[in-house]
């Protein structure tokens, strides 16, 4: 292929050389033509200048008139006829000769006739002879008496004149002949020159045609071979592309396959850490978890890189609560920072102009995590600061994130290598600190995918500031990331949660986490089981895996939402390993509330439950008809199990009696402003409500202890209790 390409190149190069030669030739030809034209026009103008009287004719006429004059005079003398008529005729003859002489003197001839010295000499002799006699003829014309002697002298002189004119005539004839021959030669020369140039022209045109033909042919050949090469290249490219695709596919599959067991390992380790462990085992378990975490990060990086290399780096634009994302991310790395002896600081504006922006929270968190992890990794006993700044105009608002550390820093040479795939500042870095060298490359690609820019300022030994700027467009309403919704409190009330998950290990891990968080967990092995369970039981939350046998998460969600079951309105959060835009859209369409990427960690679960609690709080805000919530149901089941149904009913009715008494007391206490007594009464009410599972009443009583209590809110509480009584006792 390379040889063919070279050949084509050679052909084209040769052709262009030939073109250059042709161009030179054409220029020469043009010059020749110009010269020829100049020559012809010069000759022509010479010809124009040469339009003159014929010298030979004039000399002939002179000779002729001289002879006629001599003849006339001679006859007159011989015949001795000197009548006035003859004398007059003789005068005319002389006048004509005189005029002929004048003509010869004054006329410009076509040849260099007059420049000839011999001619000049002869003409002078003739002129003297003619003009010398003018006095005699003037006298004759004036009618003076004729002197025969003078005429005799003139006659003999004219005889010599005639000889001279004849000599001049002959000489002129030969001169003119020579000149004519020369002129013919000159014309011939010109003709030869023209012929030569025309011949050259013909040669040139023939050469031109031949070269053009050859050139056309070779260019055609080159074109064909180039086309062939381009086809080959296309095939090779497609083959390479297919290979690359297969490689990426393999990496994706392998990554997924590795991640699943790894998640199990990590989850199990985390669970084990939560239980009391003998001191000999605890450090080992921590090592397992940390190594697993590191391995997971490496695999994620490689998978991301494989995706980005394939141009498939997904960016999903959603509503992002910047403060929540940043806070959560810092919390995620706080432990690690502490391990390195680093202090971690978060600098945020007091209030954001655009608190919720339209961006990709997962990717944003990924970049922040990566940069923070790096900063922590390369800093010991220092400070890592995450700074968020709002910059730019209101129309073109931007967010600038800065991650500053007091670590080892990077020199100028190293800065150039950053953001390049598989490159670290130097080889010793990877030995000392580890890492794939892909993190910053991925960060760069993500930031660019988010229409932002990334960069670094650093000085060796003085630490670094990694920064990135992304557009801060205000978000439209949509699914807010489950994790980012709210910083989670550490203690939760107990919710009734349905975990839909087919993988046994994942079940165990997630159920373990939830149990640890004090939640009640029911497990469904697939979608069908989940749908059945939701029909008969009221759940506060459904965690739904996406890929399951028999009935997948999307379909199960649709059926739950469409059913008439107890949990048809419960929040459903999807759990999936690969969260693409399409998946997200499908989830939303199916009626899911939120979205959680797998593996689900303790941290994430904490966030989800936190948001559930937050939602419940806001939901209670307006006065609404009380409902039998999960807490009540759970408590009821507990008591029924331990003491039986009847006892529970008794407990409940006695609670309502106590409550009405307590409320009456509260009214009187409030009337006299006895705060201590009010607080005591509220405390009692809260405890009583809790014991029968009326968490709502308990919470509100508790809230009132800290708020300024009024007759209105007390009436409100009383109203709520009354409604519960109607609902439960009736």
């Amino acid at each position: 292929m390379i040889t063919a390409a070279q050949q084509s190149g050679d052909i084209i190069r040769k052709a262009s050389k030939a073109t250059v030669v042709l161009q030179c030739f054409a220029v020469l030809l043009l010059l020749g033509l110009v010269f020829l034209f100049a020559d012809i026009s010069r000759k022509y103008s010479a010809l124009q200048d040469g339009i003159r009287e014929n010298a030979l004719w004039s000399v002939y006429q002179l000779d002729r008139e001289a002879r006629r004059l001599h003849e006339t005079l001679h006859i007159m003398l011989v015949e001795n006829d000197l009548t006035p008529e003859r004398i007059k005729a003789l005068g005319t003859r002389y006048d004509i000769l005189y005029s002929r002489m004048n003509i010869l003197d004054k006329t410009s001839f076509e040849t260099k006739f007059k420049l000839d010295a011999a001619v000049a000499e002869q003409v002078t002799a003739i002129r003297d002879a003619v003009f010398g006699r003018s006095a005699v003829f003037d006298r004759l014309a004036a009618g003076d008496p004729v002197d025969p002697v003078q005429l005799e002298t003139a006659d003999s002189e004219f005889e010599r004149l005639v000889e001279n004119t004849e000599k001049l005539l002959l000489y002129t004839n030969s001169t003119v002949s020579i000149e004519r021959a020369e002129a013919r030669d000159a014309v011939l020369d010109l003709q030869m020159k023209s012929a030569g140039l025309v011949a050259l022209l013909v040669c040139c045109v023939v050469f031109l045609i031949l070269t053009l033909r050859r050139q056309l042919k070779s260019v055609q050949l080159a074109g064909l071979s180039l086309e062939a090469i381009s086809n080959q290249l296309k095939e090779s490219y497609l083959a390479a592309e297919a290979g690359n695709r297969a490689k990426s596919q393999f990496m994706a599959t392998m990554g997924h396959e590795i991640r699943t067991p790894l998640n199990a390992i990590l989850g199990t380790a985390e669970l084990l850490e939560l239980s009391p462990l003998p001191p000999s085992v605890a450090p080992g378990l921590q090592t397992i978890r940390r190594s697993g975490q590191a391995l997971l990060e490496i695999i994620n990086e490689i998978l991301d890189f494989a995706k980005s290399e394939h141009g498939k780096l997904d960016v999903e634009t959603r509503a992002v609560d910047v403060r929540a994302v940043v806070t959560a991310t810092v919390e995620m790395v706080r432990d690690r920072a502490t391990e390195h002896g680093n202090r971690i600081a978060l600098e945020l504006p007091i209030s954001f102009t655009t608190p919720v922006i339209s961006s990709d929270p997962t990717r944003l968190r990924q970049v922040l995590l990566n940069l923070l992890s790096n900063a922590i990794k390369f800093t010991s006993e220092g400070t890592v600061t995450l700074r968020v700044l709002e910059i730019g105009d209101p129309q073109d608002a931007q967010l600038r994130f800065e991650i500053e550390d007091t670590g080892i820093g990077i020199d100028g040479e190293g800065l150039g290598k950053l953001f390049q795939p598989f490159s670290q500042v130097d080889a010793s870095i990877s030995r000392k600190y580890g890492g794939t060298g892909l993190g910053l490359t991925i960060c760069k690609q993500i930031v660019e995918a988010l229409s932002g820019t990334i960069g670094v300022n650093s000085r060796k030994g003085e630490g670094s500031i990694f920064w990135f700027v992304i557009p801060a467009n205000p978000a439209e309403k949509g699914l807010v990331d489950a994790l980012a919704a709210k910083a989670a409190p550490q203690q939760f009330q107990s919710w009734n949660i349905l975990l839909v998950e087919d993988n046994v290990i994942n079940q165990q891990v997630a159920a373990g986490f939830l149990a640890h968080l004090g939640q009640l967990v029911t497990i469904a092995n697939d979608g069908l089981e989940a749908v059945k369970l939701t029909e008969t039981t009221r759940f506060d939350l459904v965690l739904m895996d996406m890929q399951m046998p028999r009935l997948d998460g999307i379909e199960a969600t649709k059926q739950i939402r469409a059913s008439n079951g107890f949990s048809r309105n419960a929040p459903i959060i999807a759990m999936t390993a690969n969260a693409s835009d399409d998946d997200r859209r499908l989830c939303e369409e199916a009626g899911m509330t939120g979205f959680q990427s797998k593996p689900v960690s303790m941290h994430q679960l904490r966030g989800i439950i936190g948001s559930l609690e937050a939602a419940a709080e806001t939901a209670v805000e307006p006065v609404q008809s009380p409902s039998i919530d999960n807490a009540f149901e759970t408590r009821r089941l507990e008591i029924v199990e331990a003491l039986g149904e009847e006892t529970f009913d008794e407990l409940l009715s006695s609670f309502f009696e106590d409550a009405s008494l307590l409320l009456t007391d509260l009214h009187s206490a409030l009337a006299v402003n006895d705060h201590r007594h009010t607080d005591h009464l509220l405390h009692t009410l809260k405890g009583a409500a809790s014991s029968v599972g009326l968490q709502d009443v308990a919470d509100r009583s508790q809230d009132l202890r800290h708020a300024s209590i009024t007759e209105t809110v007390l009436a409100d509480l009383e109203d709520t209790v009354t409604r519960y009584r109607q609902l439960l006792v009736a």
Partner: protein
Amino acid sequence: MINRIMIAAVIVAGALLPLQATALDLPKGKVVLTVTGTKLDHPNVGGKAQFDMPMLEALAGRTGEMETPWTEGVVKFSGPLLRSVLEAAGAHGTKLKVIALNDYAADLPMEDATSLDTMLATRMDGKLMSVRDKGPLFLVYPFDKDQGLFNEKYFSRSVWQIKDIEVTE
């Protein structure tokens, strides 16, 4: 009726006009030019038209300044136009034969007289020309008006010392 008579009279008068052509006056001085032809409308002497210098100079003519091969520098020629001379003689024909004192003759087409302002120059630089100086008449083509005439063809027709012009069919 009266109208008709008048129209007839006009027609008759129009038809008679060419016949009323008057003959040339007789030359009073020395005859310098004789025009002969098979058909002359206004002959004055024995079927020929003869002109003396005042007769010629009275005819419509022109003056032109020009260079010729036979003169030095720019020369001013003046004299009657050839066609006015021919008209005065009432000559008709297609060819002219211009004959000089030395019997030199040149044939020229009638067009040279009708379509070109060819003159029979009587004066050069305002002076009458002697025989010694190409006089008395010199056929001068309008070289000043048309450079295309400046070639051997017209040079050979430029006859001087003219004495006769023969007009032939």
